[in-house]
């Protein structure tokens, strides 16, 4: 056996049982689902009838339990399953939830909590105030260690190809931490400015807010962060790393893949040289993407993020042989030269002057070639972003008429929707389901494009419906220029010739899908040169991915080596939306851009940036799907280096001799008594909330009204709220409500001497030792007791509450009395979690759904299954002294069972 006894639940009952058994010399494992032991008792202000401080009693017991030599405490853990073995012991399965904080290092300083950017309701203050995702439950928590609440990966973060944790920078922007937002992004990619303008933003497709009014504009938020940061910091704040290694790496190509790989390699101290065939770095970012979408100065600033690390970029240097690079002393090579060669249509007349490839056309424009299309007619062929770019550039160069011919329909167009719409807004005519079949000309110069209409057939291997020519549908247009944008391929024939590099039939490099290593050891490749033309973010991902394996290679490690850690499973968007009963409507802001007529006159950036307020509004729409946003502020704040996001839940399989169930009780949720107004009147609170307001660790500075912070001076208690009430399915008396209400009344009279307190009751049950005296004392102090069931609570204009009740002790009439705060003395309900713990058997419940004590009179704490015992309120509503007695009984029975098993 691993432990003699398992105690499930670390409230007062569980602690008492564990301490009793530990003192007897048994080894005890105490499992608690919350991050701290103490249960509900530690959250109380004082206990009745002695008015002793609850914390003063509970805290030493918590510490004694946690530090007891015979008791092992496992917090933030849940028992998944208990199975009885033939020898009478129990096999238990426990899920030790990841805290993402190394408890050995955590000092309990709460810096992580203060730095955290995600606010959620504080269940330890019963939602009277918020807490943070990173948090310590309360000041007296044992262990006093932080945990970070994560429900899984946020859908946006899970969708991001470079795992950029968009939720992280969104939550930073929401908090006004704009610099930190960009520095967060820089942990994952060096080109935030470019991605903020050109990213395909798969994150936005997954945003849970998309199920409501529309997803967050995550890409634009990234752009906002980079604009803000770049304006403030024209140069990176960092320089080369402190330690430079003696290994050299060559990167072929300075596009997004090459820059990203170089960035991560250089950060780790490798000496990186980038070889760029063109006369300026940036690859497609500077060569083909038009400046109205991506200004060159933004790319230049992105590139500084890489060169600041000491990366050298040699422009105008075309690499013809990879093995030659290795011979020149480079220990590893990353090939990321993109796919910059236009694919030909292979139709008649394509070699006429006036038929050009889109890459060649766009490169010429970005290079500054003098191209004047004033008054000309232009046809662009293709449906991708390059086609759209070409058409919009042609428009800006003066073309009077621009057509885009695409052989499928708009639904199949690979270009971004927003780009297509922008093109349409700029009077570019979209000719869907049409493609050129012939170019005709005069004197070797294009004069006409002859096209044919298409219809959509069955889906092809890409999943898109195959275009099929419609016979007899030929038509023609007189044109001056045709730009062919049907695809690009890498220009890497020399690698095949000189290095025997393996190529695919699409003329891309063959790589290992895990490591991205080519058939030449030490030569890796990624981006468009491997995938064919893809998106900027996919290229950046390839660079980051390759850098991981290149570093392993350079360290002499076996490839592929240890698998990369997977992200947490993505949270279900529907589950996220169920967290709230309803949502305020927060429409996304309208995209701001230059008016179409104005923008086609030059190459000014079309999309306009967010203001600070706009960015924070948009970020404020985030639903915090994953809980923790992974913004990383806790990591920065923690001086003990205790934050560890690599932690994962662990399943522990253990054998124990006996089990004590001390899973406690639930409190009645008064939302179901709609006539009491708990859900819509802020000044109707529960007694547990009042206990928090009275406790030394209270959420407010004193007892205040939640509606407006006013000190209440006329407080009502409504007893039997959710107990002795068949309408809510709980006919039982909760045994504690009368006394805790009287306790609170006395405490309020101490802290608010001028307050009037009225307790509406059916009858007062003062059955315990000194309870009656306690009740009489409250009367003498001036607490007003009104015998009568409350029928309804209505809210007035000033937040005051009208309590409608029957005055049984008076004339029996219905009365309406005004109070400024109403406390519902909510009842106790069974916690039914315990009933499902056992597999291959059943822990029987009584008719009220508490754990059944099969021989309550003669052998309390004994359940329907030998070896499993129940302690405290898991078996019935009871007060703290009774709970402690009951826990002793459970401990004795459990000890006896262990002795029998050992024999």
């Amino acid at each position, binding site marked *: 056996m691993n432990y003699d006894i398992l105690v499930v639940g670390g409230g007062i009952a569980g602690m008492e049982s564990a301490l009793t058994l530990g003192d007897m010399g048994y080894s005890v494992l105490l499992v608690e689902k919350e991050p701290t032991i103490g249960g509900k008792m530690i959250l109380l202000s004082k206990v009745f009838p002695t008015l002793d401080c609850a914390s003063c009693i509970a805290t030493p017991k918590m510490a004694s339990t946690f530090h007891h030599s015979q008791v092992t405490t496992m917090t933030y853990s849940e028992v998944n399953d208990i199975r009885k073995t033939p020898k009478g012991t129990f096999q238990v399965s426990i899920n030790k939830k990841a805290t993402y904080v190394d408890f050995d290092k955590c000092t309990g300083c709460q810096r992580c909590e203060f730095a955290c950017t995600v606010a959620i309701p504080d269940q330890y203050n019963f939602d009277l105030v918020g807490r943070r995702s990173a948090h310590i439950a309360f000041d007296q928590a044992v262990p006093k260690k932080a945990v970070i609440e994560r429900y899984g990966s946020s859908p946006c973060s899970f969708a991001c190809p470079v795992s950029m944790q968009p939720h992280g920078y969104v939550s930073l922007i929401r908090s006004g931490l704009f610099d930190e937002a960009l520095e967060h992004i820089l942990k994952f990619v060096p080109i935030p400015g470019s991605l903020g303008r050109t990213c395909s933003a798969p994150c936005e497709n997954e945003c849970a807010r998309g199920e409501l009014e529309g997803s967050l504009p995550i890409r634009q938020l990234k752009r906002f962060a980079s604009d803000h940061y770049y304006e403030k910091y024209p140069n990176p704040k960092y320089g080369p790393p402190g330690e430079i290694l003696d290994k050299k790496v060559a990167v072929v190509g300075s596009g997004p893949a090459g820059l990203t790989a170089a960035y991560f390699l250089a950060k780790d101290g490798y000496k990186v040289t980038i070889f760029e065939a063109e006369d300026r770095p940036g690859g497609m970012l500077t060569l083909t993407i038009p400046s109205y979408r991506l200004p060159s100065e933004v790319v230049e600033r992105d590139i500084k993020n890489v060169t600041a690390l000491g990366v050298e970029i040699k422009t105008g240097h075309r690499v013809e042989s990879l093995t030659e690079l290795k011979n020149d002393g480079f220990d590893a090579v990353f090939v990321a030269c993109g796919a910059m060669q236009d694919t030909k249509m292979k139709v008649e007349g394509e070699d006429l002057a006036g038929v050009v490839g889109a890459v060649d056309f766009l490169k010429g424009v970005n290079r500054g070639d003098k191209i004047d299309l004033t008054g000309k007619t232009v046809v662009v062929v293709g449906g991708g972003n390059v086609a759209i770019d070409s058409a919009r550039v042609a428009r800006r160069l003066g073309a009077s008429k621009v057509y885009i011919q695409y052989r499928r329909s708009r639904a199949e167009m690979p270009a971004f929707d927003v780009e297509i719409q922008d093109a349409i807004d700029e009077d570019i005519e979209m000719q869907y389901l049409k493609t050129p079949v012939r170019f005709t000309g005069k004197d070797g110069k294009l004069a006409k494009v002859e096209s044919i209409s298409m219809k959509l057939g069955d889906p092809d291997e890409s999943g898109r419906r195959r275009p099929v020519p419609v016979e007899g549908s030929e038509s023609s247009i007189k044109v001056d220029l045709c730009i062919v944008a049907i695809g690009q391929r890498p220009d890497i024939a020399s690698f095949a010739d000189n290095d025997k590099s393996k190529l695919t039939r699409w003329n891309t490099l063959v790589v290992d899908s895990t490591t991205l290593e080519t058939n030449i050891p030490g030569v890796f490749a990624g981006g468009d040169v491997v995938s064919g033309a893809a998106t900027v973010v996919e290229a950046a991902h390839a660079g980051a991915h390759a850098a991981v394996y290149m570093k392993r290679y350079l360290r002499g490690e076996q490839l592929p080596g240890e698998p990369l850690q997977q992200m947490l499973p993505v949270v279900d968007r529907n589950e996220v939306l169920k967290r709230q009963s309803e*949502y305020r409507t927060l429409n996304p802001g309208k995209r701001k851009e230059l008016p179409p007529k104005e923008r086609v006159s030059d190459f000014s950036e079309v999309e306009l940036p967010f203001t600070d307020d706009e960015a924070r509004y948009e970020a*404020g729409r985030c*639903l915090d799907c994953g809980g923790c946003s992974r913004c990383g502020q806790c990591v920065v704040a923690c001086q003990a280096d205790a934050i560890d996001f690599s932690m994962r839940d662990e399943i522990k399989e253990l054998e124990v001799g006996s089990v004590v169930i001390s899973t406690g009780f639930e409190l009645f949720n008064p939302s179901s008594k709609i006539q009491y107004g708990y859900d819509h009147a802020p000044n109707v609170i529960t007694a547990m909330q009042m206990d928090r307001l009275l406790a030394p660790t209270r*959420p407010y*500075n*004193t007892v205040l009204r939640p*509606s*407006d*912070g006013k*000190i209440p001076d006329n407080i009502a208690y409504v007893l039997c709220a959710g107990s002795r009430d068949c309408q809510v399915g709980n006919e039982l008396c909760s045994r504690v409500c009368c006394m805790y209400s009287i306790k609170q009344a006395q405490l309020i009279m101490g802290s608010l001497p001028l307050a009037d307190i009225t307790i509406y009751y059916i009858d007062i049950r003062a059955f315990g030792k000194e309870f009656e005296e306690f009740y009489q004392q409250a009367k003498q102090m001036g607490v007003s007791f009104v015998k009568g069931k409350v029928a309804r609570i209505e809210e007035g204009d000033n937040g005051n509450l009208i309590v409608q009740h029957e005055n049984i002790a008076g004339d029996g009439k219905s009365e309406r009395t005004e109070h400024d705060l109403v406390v519902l003395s909510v009842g106790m309900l069974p916690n039914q979690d315990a009933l499902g713990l056992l597999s291959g058997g059943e822990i029987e419940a009584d008719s009220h759904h508490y754990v059944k004590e099969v021989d309550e009179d003669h052998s309390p704490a004994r359940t329907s299954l030998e070896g499993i015992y129940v302690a405290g309120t898991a078996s019935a509503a009871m007060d703290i002294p009774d709970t402690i007695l009951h826990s002793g009984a459970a401990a004795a029975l459990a000890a006896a069972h262990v002795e029998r098993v050992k024999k």
Partner: protein
Amino acid sequence: MNNKVRDPREIMRDEMFMRDKVLAALNDGPKTVPEIAEVMDYPVSEVMYWVMAARKYGYIEEIKEPTEDDYFQYKLVKNE
């Protein structure tokens, strides 16, 4: 009090966005929760959450004696 009460989870999520507005409202001197709400033009019951959170995390503190109409005033905590 005819304002519709929002889900507390949503109000608290706004805290990170609203904190600066609460602090800005206190720039020109201490205020009660209703006074802060008036400056912010947000429902008082929602502002109460944000004010108490700002207090919990040490951005603001109460002035010891309440006003004549039984409200506490809150002021910015001066960072040393």
